[in-house]
């Protein structure tokens, strides 16, 4: 597999603009939607507030239920109406089921027992604290009609045109500038021609300068200048060659194609998941750890489709397909809602490759130092595709050690050494370097 590099400076600005535009439009549309929905449904469902119901549903029910899809529990769209129509059960039955399903089953209720058996005798958690109003809200939410997310396409289109528009505007500016220069050049030529004409008319000899040596000949004749230029060229080329060689093995911006298109932007950015929720070993271990698939499945057992913003390249179908890849890897059968046992470990391409001879410990920096992940890994929450943000060179490490103050507060370990060292250096705050963070053996063993 080949590494794919992208020139960061070029793309990042454009991407960021895209992001901002996309966010804005999507927000407006979403707001409109919510207004529209609340307005329309408040007329229909008298007793419950579906907006409240949605938040209650997401908090309490979404782990096992989905509106349109059978998961651990049954699909719940129009559950009240369906129960009333098919089984003649009213809201009171539903209330007692929600508050204490086990009791209802025990009481010998026939439908309760039927549904209990249907779902592998998995008891439903009792929600005794839900008030009548809460249940009404939730049921109002479940009673909403399914809305096909047509707007997404519009958003995508809008985002794309705006994004391309910004690209074009740059070109227009450039084009305008070029035109300006061309016009200026034209004007100069015209002026010169006119002046020449005047000179001709007045009989002035304008070719008198031809007796002077051409510039390059004069340059060649001046040995000092040649020498200086040669030295300059040599130094310049040495500088560039050195610069090039120093880049060998530095993979800043390395952005390989991963087996599953995992978007940090969606997870860490849009959904605001803490980095250490998935990369939990960063707290205690030298490695941050690539999350095992069971960590993914904690959420993705119930999140089986993508409902966020999409682009042409990354459509909903695309993202849903990636979730299916995860299911295949974890051996999860979405239809049966259980693990098949046939898993396929994911072979991620490692992006941050520290050489073997350098020892780096995440917990030292994350837990002890309290350094933000973004300090080294860059704006991960904005990365649709993860790339290497920092150069990961020794100079880069050392520089940070020189500048970063050690977090010594409330740490019993540092109490004595901080007191002694701050007296020695006459400073209150100590950098990692002053603590000995520049010694070879601290990282190389």
């Amino acid at each position, binding site marked *: 597999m*080949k590494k794919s590099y992208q020139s960061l400076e070029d793309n990042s600005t454009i991407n960021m603009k895209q992001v901002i535009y996309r966010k804005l439009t999507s927000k407006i549309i979403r707001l409109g939607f919510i207004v529209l929905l609340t307005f329309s449904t408040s007329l229909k469902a008298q007793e419950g507030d579906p907006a409240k119901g949605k938040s209650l549903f997401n908090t309490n029910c979404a782990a096992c239920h989905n509106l349109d899809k059978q998961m651990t529990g049954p699909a719940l769209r129009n559950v009240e109406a369906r129960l009333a129509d098919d089984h003649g059960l009213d809201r009171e039955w539903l209330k007692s089921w929600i508050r204490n399903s086990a009791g209802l089953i025990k009481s010998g209720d026939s439908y309760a027992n039927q549904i209990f058996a249907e779902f592998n005798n998995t008891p439903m958690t009792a929600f005794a604290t839900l008030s009548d109003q809460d249940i009404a809200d939730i049921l109002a939410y479940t009673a909403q009609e399914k809305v096909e997310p047509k707007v997404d396409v519009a958003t995508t289109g809008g985002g794309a045109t705006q994004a391309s528009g910004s690209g074009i505007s740059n070109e227009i500016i450039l084009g305008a500038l070029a035109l300006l220069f061309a016009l200026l050049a034209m004007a100069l030529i015209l002026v010169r021609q006119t002046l020449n004409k005047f000179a001709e008319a007045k009989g002035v000899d304008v070719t008198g300068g031809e007796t002077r040596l051409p510039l390059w000949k004069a340059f060649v004749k001046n040995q000092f200048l040649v020498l200086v230029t040669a030295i300059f060229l040599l130094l310049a080329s040495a500088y560039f060659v050195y610069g090039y060689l120093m880049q060998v093995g530095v993979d800043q911006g390395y952005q390989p194609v991963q087996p599953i298109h995992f978007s940090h932007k969606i997870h860490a950015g849009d959904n605001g998941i803490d980095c250490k929720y998935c990369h939990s070993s960063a707290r205690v271990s030298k490695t941050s750890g690539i999350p095992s698939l069971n960590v993914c499945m904690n959420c993705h057992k119930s999140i089986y489709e993508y409902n966020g913003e999409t682009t042409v390249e990354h459509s909903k179908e695309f993202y849903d397909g990636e979730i299916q890849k995860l299911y295949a*890897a974890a051996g999860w059968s979405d239809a049966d809602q259980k693990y098949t046992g046939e898993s396929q*470990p994911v072979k991620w391409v490692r992006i941050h490759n520290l050489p073997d*001879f350098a020892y780096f410990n995440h917990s030292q920096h994350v837990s002890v130092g309290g350094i933000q992940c973004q300090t080294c890994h860059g704006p991960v929450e904005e990365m649709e595709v993860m790339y290497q943000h920092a150069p990961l060179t020794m100079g880069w490490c050392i520089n940070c050690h020189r500048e970063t103050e050690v977090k010594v507060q409330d740490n019993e370990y540092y109490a004595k050494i901080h007191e002694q060292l701050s007296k020695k250096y006459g400073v209150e705050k100590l950098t990692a370097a002053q603590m000995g963070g520049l*010694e070879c053996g601290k990282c190389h*063993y």
Partner: protein
Amino acid sequence: MSSNKKYWKSVEELNENSSIVETLKQNEFVEEIPTDEFLGDKASLESSSTTRRDFLKYVGFSTAAASLAACEGPVIKSIPYVVQPEEIIPGVANYYATTIADGYDFASVLVKTREGRPIKIENNALAAVNGSANARVNASVLGLYDSLRVQGPLKGDAAITWNEFDAQTNQKLNEVKASGKQIVLLTQTFASPSTSALIAEFAAKFGNVKHVQYDAVSESAALDAYQAKYGERGLANYDFSKASTIVSIGADFLGDWQGGGFDSGYAKGRVPNHGKMSRHIQFESNMSLTGANADKRVPLTPTQQKQALAKLYTLLVGGSVSVDLPEAVAQAVANAAAQIKSAGANAVVVTGLQDVNAQTVVLEINSHLKSKAYDPKTTIKTRQGNDKAVAALVADMKAGKVGAIIMSGVNPMYTLPNAADFAEGLKQTDLSIAFSLKKDETSALAQYIAAAPHYLESWGDVEMKKGYYGLTQPTIRPLFDTRQFQEALLKWNGSATTYHDYIKQTWNTSVLGGASFSQALHDGVFTTNHSVVVETPEGAHHEDKTFVGGIIEDVAEGLGLKKEEEGTVETTTATSGAAAARALAGATSQGMELVFYSKTGMGDGQQANNPWLQEFPDPISRVSWDNYLTVSKADAESLNLKNVHVATGALDGSYADVTVNGTTLKNVPVLIQPGQAKGTVGLAFGYGRTEGLKEEMKTGVNAFTLYQDFNTVQNVTVAAAAGMHEFACIQLHNTLMGRGDIVKETTLEIFNTKDKSHWNAIPMVSLNHEETPVTSPDVDLWDEFDRSIGHHFNLSIDLNACTGCGACVIACHAENNVPVVGKEEVRRSRDMHWLRIDRYYSSEDSFEGDNEKKDNIAGLGSSLTGFGEMEHPADNPQVAFQPVMCQHCNHAPCETVCPVAATSHGRQGQNHMAYNRCVGTRYCANNCPYKVRRFNWFLYNGNDEFDYHMNDDLGRMVLNPDVVVRSRGVMEKCSMCIQMTQKTVLDAKRDGRVIKDGEFQTACSAACSSGAMVFGDINDKDSKVAHLKADNRMYHLLEHIGTKPNVIYQTKVRNTTEA
């Protein structure tokens, strides 16, 4: 004048007209060279589209393409778990307590695992009584990753499944049962309550079952003597920390004597404490580790040892024998007796003579003394082998009486002197199964090889001593399709339970007495004051009322034990003790005596395919990769055996043919061993393996072939043979030549009575023509750095407590990914050990004598002769061990000469080595006064030239991921385990707490069970190492050169006070 003779090569040439001769004259080669075949075929040459130029173009292009492709960085894949086990956090080590019980080594240990793979064996602090991890136990982790392990059950050479194995063996066992022939279980000593119960169940099911326990190196005589006296098959326990006078007659109790594990107790009593330390007198033939540590060592032949023991008995207990001992020896025995008498119950006598009489006499002496160090109640159970039963088995097999033999943990084809008889007997059996890790000498001949798991993949339990238990638990899922012996027994018994459940059941019913199994498993050890004896098939047990385990004598008294014991002692003393002494006194011998011993590194040879152990230098001879016949200098001269140093600095030795009772071992390399008793030769077990190991590991000769009647002493004839053997000996300069500042040594008397300046003087240098101590800042060329802030690590090594066991060397290997370089490279002094244990002899009777001689040298003439003499160790030299690793000098000579600043100093006192910066000039090694820097002459990993564990994927699993594997052309050295100190610091930072003394450890200090190595932070004024730094015995190695090392040594004190 030249002659006109005509020379001819063949009669044909005499015939003048021969056409053949004429043709031959014209043709240089008789046979045509087939050049035409490839050049003459014009057609194919021309039809070929590749011209020479094209060919060169292709070569050029592919070279360029290859080098261009090399510029591309590799794509590294990262594969996380699908379901991450809860207890595993990548990058964080887990520790499990388990127990090794391979039949030779028994110890409860901690296993360090990383990402689910065991990488290091460490001491279990909770299990001090169950023996600490010696060099072999430390190295045993590598056996798990042995690439030659059997990977599944085999029938002959064909792989079969366990189901097939079960079906076939069950059928055959039932056939054998029906035929009425014996079914024999030939096993190692398991000392396992659960296994005993299983075997009993197996016997109940199959009827004519015999269980024969077999120890490769037999302790049968001691077991017999103990059994005769105490009615139970076992060994008496000794706690040498309680003895002020220790007399050993041929017992290498710091080695493998009676199962080993006595060294930490011994070391405790050796450190001068309030002016007192134990006195240790050793009578022995071979120079053993124990003899090297003794205060007084008397070299004796085994026959003389027997007589000395008889004499000692009469002097202590009473009675009379007439023995014929040289005057000096008789005096030494008398002195020892006097010393024992004055010490009374604080004295202890032990013997390693494989003679029931000798063992009986010793038990009697200790009982008579009421020795506090002697503990017959805490019976040691780790040796159970019965020589007679094994001999009877071989006879039965040959007679065709044995229908089936099932072997586990034994390798009789290698360890039996009459292996040929055994092989013949094996053919007569209807069924032979060998549970084995390898296709070794024995399993190769068995019908079925039942692939056995390594102990790190197995369940198990051990009763090491009465009342002291250990549990074995798997630390990794089985690497291969293996099944342990006990699981197979369960299958044969028709039980569906797993061995794990079986152990749990056994323990819950009969061991734990209500205690928690999980807790016992967590601890790895369990101590109780009652013992379990599982004899009956039902697994019933009874509490032993006669003997009370533990070491609490009061409890024993309460049970009326004392009385009974005294009674028996009286009678036995009257009969067997005196009789045994008389029998001993009558010992005679003809000619040379051969004394077998086991090496610290190789033991009984089970781990012969372990490169760490092969390269481990013997503590005494400093020879690696070999065993050899140790001969005294006098005998060597009379037998015309030589040791020479060749130009490369390597050691060569003569070969000798060794004959015992008609059996000859040919071409045994000879090593002249100072301190070897005249008239004796020594030979180590464990070498000369031929099957189940890599070609490089097939080293040495098999001493077991001469181990007749399981007697470690044999009458022998030694004859010089042709040729010289090449040794890989890592230390050629055997003596100190009076350089007292390397190993500082004094006697207890001087230590107690005189001032420190007398026996541990600080070297003086001249400053402005005035004697100034070298430690004075005035004579220092360097500015001192401020090291008072933060941690400042020091490592203290007590030369008194160090027994030279070498556990630290292997622990260092495992922790720091030290490569194995092989015999040839060791011979070229390219060994890579970061930590070596130097052994020094003295040329006079004592190191003091050496010093005196050096001081008295006057003038060139006497210096030439004097130093010449001092180069050669004496016949019975004093020995000192000195572990030397990088001294982490505060004023390091290596740092100033490095042209690329690859080695530099840290403020924590460690001398850092940045491998990636090193360009391999080796200036640092040249400038190091301690010679502790090691150069990577080759790439030792993934290189077929060095086919050791780092050359295969399996073996590389043992590597410590926190330490880099060095490459070719790089200098390396001890880092003072900076990865461990950094880890301790980080853990404390994360928890936000102050570090306690004892938390800082290095691999060597953690492995040191004798307490000789103490590591810590001297800026913590209350730490143990800070006190040791201020101790009077403290000195620095080569202090006069002013390197100010961070490794400190404690002067060796010998208790030379005669009674």
